[in-house]
C-alpha cells in the first residue's frame, strides 16, 4: 500500500492559500464540514513524484495559533491532536512575499510544536514590482526549514513544492525560539508538572481554554492548577510572546530580506483614494450594486427561460413516451417540475457567486466593509453584514452562509435572522403574477407605471423590515460577545480565473445538491398528497362529477377539468386546505390559495405552480394562469377572489412570511440550534399574518 502523506495548509487570510490548494489539487477536492460545527472543511488529493499521494487539508485562514473564532479554532484543534486522522505529517505555511513578516508569526508558533514545517512564499511574481529581494538560503538556515518560492498566478515553483512535500522527512523540527523565556519560573513549574509534554503545547492549551473555553483534552486536565494566573496576566504573557516572536522575525528578516522602497510602485494608495473616498467610494459602490442587480435579473433571464422551457418539454416528453400510470405522473408532475424548480435558480446563484468571488478576490469587498461599518452598526449589524444583505436579493441560503466571517456572534446572529426579509429571487414570480392581477396597468402622472412602482415598493419594504428588525433585535438580544472588528485591507489583485471558477462551481454545486435534495423530496410528497385521497369522494370522483354534470352536456375537456379539480378538492392536500381555510379567510384567501401558501413553505416560487395545478390549467403560460385567477370568484362576496384587498394582503404576506424550508435548514446548520430557525418561522409568519390581516380588513 502506498503511503499517503497528510499535509495541512496553514496561513494568514489573503495570502493565496486557497490558490496554492487549487494549484495542488485542481478540481480533485471536496468541501464538507467539520463534525458538529459549520466550518467548511476543504480537502483534496495531490499526486506527488514517485507515486506518492498527499492528502491535503486547506485549513481556515488564521493569523496565529491563538484562536478567536470557530474557524481559527479548527486549526489549533488539529495541530494539538496527534491522534486525529488528519494530523499533518507536514505543515505547509503559506505566506505572501509582501507580508512575510506578519506571515512568519504563525510559522514560528507551529515550529514550536515540533511539527515538520515547510514555508511557502507565494506571489513571488510581485517581488520585482515591490522591490523585494530574498536570501532564501539565509532564511532556510535561520528558520530551520525548507522554503518554496512560488507564484500561483504565474504557475511557477509548484513542482518544487511537491518535491519538498514528498521529502518532508528532511525538514528539521527544531523550534525557532524558546517561548518559555517570557516567564521562566512559570514555565519551569509547568515543565516539572508535566515532564512528558511539549511545553509549548501546554501553553497553547492553557491560553486556549482561557480564550475560547471549548477544548476538552482529558490528558492535560490537570492544567487547571496552572491557571493560577489571572486572565489579564495570561493575556499580558501572550502579548509578550507575540513581541518576542516579532523580535526574532525582525532579526531574521533584517539580513534575509531587502526592500528597495524606491522600486516599489503603489497602485493601492491611488485606488484607495477613490474607492474609500467619503463620496466617490459610496457612489462607486452604488454603481457596482446596480450592475450586479442588472446582471442577476437581466442576464440570467435568458438561461432561465431556456431551462424553464426545457423542463416543460421534458415533462411532456415523459408523459408521451412512458406508459400511463401513477409513476409516470409522479415523474412528469412531481419530480421533473421539482428538479426544474432547483435548476432554474442555477444561473442566478452562479452569477451571484461569480460577482462575490470577483469582489472578494480583487480585495474590493474589504473596502465595502470599511465604508459600511459605521452605518450598519447603528442597526446592530457589522460592516461585514453588507455582503449577506446583498446576496440575499438572490437567495437567502448563500447569503446566510456568507455571514461566517463576522467576528461578533451577536452581529452575525442578527444578520442571519434578518436576511430572509430581503426580497429574494423566489418571491419575484409570486409578486409579478399578483401585481398583474390587482394593480391597474396605468401610469402615475402618465409616467411611472403603478405596477413597477409596487414592485419597487415591495423591495424597499423588504429592506426596511430587515434593517428595522435588526435594530429591534439589537435592543432585545442579550448576548455578550466580543465586539471587536479588525479587517485586513488586502492589496488589490486581478482575480485569478481558476479561483473564481472553482468557487462558482463549488458553491453552486453545494446549493444544488444541498437545498436541491430537500426541494425534490418535498415536491414528491406534495405531489403524492395532491394525487391521493381517502374515501368515496376521491376514489369515485369520476362518477360523481359525471352524474352531477350529466344534464349540462359538457365538452370532454371541460369534464376532465372538473374531475381533476374535484379530485384535488378531496385529496389529502385538499382536505388539509379546507381544514385550514377558516384561519386564512380573514386574510381574504380561499382554500386553494391556502394550499398554495402551505406548499410555498417548501419554496416560495412553488406558489404559482401550485395554483396552476389547482386551477387545472394545462399550460404553464403565465397569461393563462392570470386569466384563470382573475376569473376566480369569492363564494362569499360574489366578487373576484383576487381583488385589490386580497392581492395586497397576499403580497404583504409573501414579503414577510418565513416560507422557505431550505433557509430554515441553513439557519439551523449555521446557528447549530433549532431555536433560531423556529423563532424565525414563528415570528416572521405571525407578523406576516397580522400585517396581511390588517391590510385586508382595512382595504376590503
Amino acid at each position, binding site marked *: 500500500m502506498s503511503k499517503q502523506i497528510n499535509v495541512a495548509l496553514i496561513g494568514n487570510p489573503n495570502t493565496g492559500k486557497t490558490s496554492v490548494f487549487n494549484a495542488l489539487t485542481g478540481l480533485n477536492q471536496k468541501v464538507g464540514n467539520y463534525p458538529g460545527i459549520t466550518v467548511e472543511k476543504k480537502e483534496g488529493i495531490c499526486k506527488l513524484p514517485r507515486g506518492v499521494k498527499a492528502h491535503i487539508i486547506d485549513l481556515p485562514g488564521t493569523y496565529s495559533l*491563538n484562536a478567536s473564532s470557530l474557524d481559527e479554532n479548527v486549526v489549533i484543534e488539529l495541530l494539538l491532536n496527534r491522534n486525529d486522522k488528519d494530523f499533518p505529517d507536514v505543515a505547509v505555511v503559506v505566506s505572501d512575499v509582501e507580508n512575510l513578516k506578519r506571515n512568519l508569526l504563525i510559522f514560528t508558533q507551529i515550529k514550536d510544536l515540533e511539527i515538520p514545517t515547510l514555508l511557502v512564499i507565494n506571489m513571488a511574481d510581485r517581488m520585482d514590482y515591490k522591490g523585494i529581494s530574498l536570501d532564501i538560503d539565509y532564511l532556510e538556515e535561520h528558520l530551520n526549514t525548507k522554503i518554496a518560492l512560488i507564484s500561483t498566478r504565474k504557475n511557477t515553483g509548484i513542482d518544487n513544492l511537491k518535491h519538498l512535500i514528498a521529502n518532508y522527512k528532511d525538514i528539521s523540527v527544531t523550534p525557532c525560539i524558546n517561548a518559555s523565556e517570557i516567564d521562566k519560573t512559570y514555565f519551569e513549574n509547568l515543565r516539572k508538572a508535566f515532564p512528558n509534554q511539549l511545553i509549548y503545547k501546554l501553553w497553547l492549551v492553557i491560553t486556549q481554554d482561557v480564550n475560547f473555553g471549548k477544548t476538552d483534552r482529558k490528558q492535560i486536565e490537570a492544567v487547571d492548577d496552572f491557571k493560577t494566573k489571572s486572565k489579564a496576566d495570561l493575556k499580558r504573557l*501572550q502579548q509578550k510572546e507575540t513581541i518576542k516572536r516579532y523580535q526574532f522575525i525582525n532579526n531574521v528578516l533584517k539580513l534575509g530580506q531587502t526592500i528597495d522602497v524606491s522600486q516599489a510602485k503603489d497602485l493601492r494608495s491611488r485606488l484607495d483614494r477613490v474607492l474609500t473616498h467619503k463620496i466617490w467610494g459610496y457612489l462607486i459602490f452604488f454603481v457596482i450594486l446596480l450592475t450586479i442587480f442588472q446582471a442577476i435579473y437581466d442576464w440570467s433571464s435568458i438561461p432561465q427561460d431556456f431551462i424553464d422551457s426545457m423542463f416543460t418539454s421534458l415533462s411532456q416528453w415523459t408523459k408521451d413516451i412512458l406508459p400511463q400510470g401513477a409513476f409516470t405522473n409522479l415523474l412528469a408532475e412531481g419530480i421533473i417540475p421539482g428538479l426544474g424548480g432547483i435548476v432554474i435558480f442555477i444561473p442566478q446563484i452562479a452569477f451571484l457567486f461569480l460577482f462575490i468571488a470577483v469582489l472578494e478576490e480583487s480585495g474590493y469587498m474589504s473596502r465595502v466593509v470599511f465604508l459600511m*461599518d459605521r452605518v450598519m452598526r447603528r442597526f446592530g449589524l457589522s460592516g461585514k453584514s453588507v455582503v449577506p444583505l446583498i446576496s440575499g436579493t438572490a437567495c437567502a441560503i448563500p447569503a446566510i452562509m456568507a455571514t461566517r466571517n463576522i467576528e461578533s456572534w451577536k452581529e452575525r446572529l442578527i444578520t442571519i435572522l434578518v436576511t430572509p426579509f430581503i426580497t429574494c429571487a423566489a418571491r419575484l414570480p409570486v409578486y409579478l403574477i399578483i401585481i398583474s392581477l390587482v394593480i391597474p396597468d396605468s401610469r402615475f402622472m402618465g409616467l411611472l407605471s403603478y405596477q413597477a412602482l409596487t414592485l419597487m415598493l415591495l423591495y424597499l419594504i423588504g429592506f426596511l423590515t430587515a434593517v428595522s428588525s435588526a435594530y429591534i433585535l439589537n435592543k432585545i438580544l442579550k448576548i455578550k460577545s466580543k465586539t471587536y472588528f479588525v*479587517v485586513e485591507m488586502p492589496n488589490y489583485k486581478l482575480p485569478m480565473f481558476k479561483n473564481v471558477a472553482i468557487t462558482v462551481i463549488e458553491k453552486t454545486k453545494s446549493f444544488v445538491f444541498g437545498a436541491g435534495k430537500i426541494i425534490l423530496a418535498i415536491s414528491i410528497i406534495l405531489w403524492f398528497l395532491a394525487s391521493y385521497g381517502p374515501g368515496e369522494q376521491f376514489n369515485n370522483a369520476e362518477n360523481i362529477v359525471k352524474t352531477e354534470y350529466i344534464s349540462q352536456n359538457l365538452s370532454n375537456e371541460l369534464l376532465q377539468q372538473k374531475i381533476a379539480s374535484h379530485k384535488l378538492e378531496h385529496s389529502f392536500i385538499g382536505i388539509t386546505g379546507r381544514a385550514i381555510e377558516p384561519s386564512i379567510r380573514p386574510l381574504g384567501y380561499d382554500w386553494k390559495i391556502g394550499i398554495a401558501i402551505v406548499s410555498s413553505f417548501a419554496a416560495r416560487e412553488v406558489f404559482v405552480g401550485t395554483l396552476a395545478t389547482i386551477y387545472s390549467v394545462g399550460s404553464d403560460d403565465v397569461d393563462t394562469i392570470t386569466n384563470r385567477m382573475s376569473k376566480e370568484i369569492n363564494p362569499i362576496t360574489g366578487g373576484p377572489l383576487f381583488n385589490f384587498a386580497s392581492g395586497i394582503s397576499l403580497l404583504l404576506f409573501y414579503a414577510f412570511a418565513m416560507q422557505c424550508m431550505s433557509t430554515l435548514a441553513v439557519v439551523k446548520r449555521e446557528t447549530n440550534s433549532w431555536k433560531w430557525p423556529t423563532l424565525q418561522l414563528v415570528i416572521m409568519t405571525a407578523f406576516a399574518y397580522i400585517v396581511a390581516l390588517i391590510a385586508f380588513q382595512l382595504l376590503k
Partner: protein
Amino acid sequence: MQDTLAHLKRGERGIITDVSSIHIPLKLLEMGCLPGNSVELVQLAPFHDPMYLNINGTHLAIRKETAAHILIDKVTL
C-alpha cells in the same frame, strides 16, 4: 495628555508606544500593532470611524473605540 490612535488625522503618522489595554484584541497585535512600530492613518470613513491604518506595511481597518486604547507618539513631519 497622551495621544491615542483615535487622535490621528488623515495622512498623519505616529509611533505606537503602548498596547497593553485589555480592550485591544490579541489579533491586532499579531497583525503587527506593536510598540515601536510606525502607524499611518490612510483613510477615514465618515464620522471618523472605522479607521484605515497602515501599521508597518500591514493595512487594516479598526473601529475608533479600539483605536482609542492604542497609545502613540505623533510624528511631526
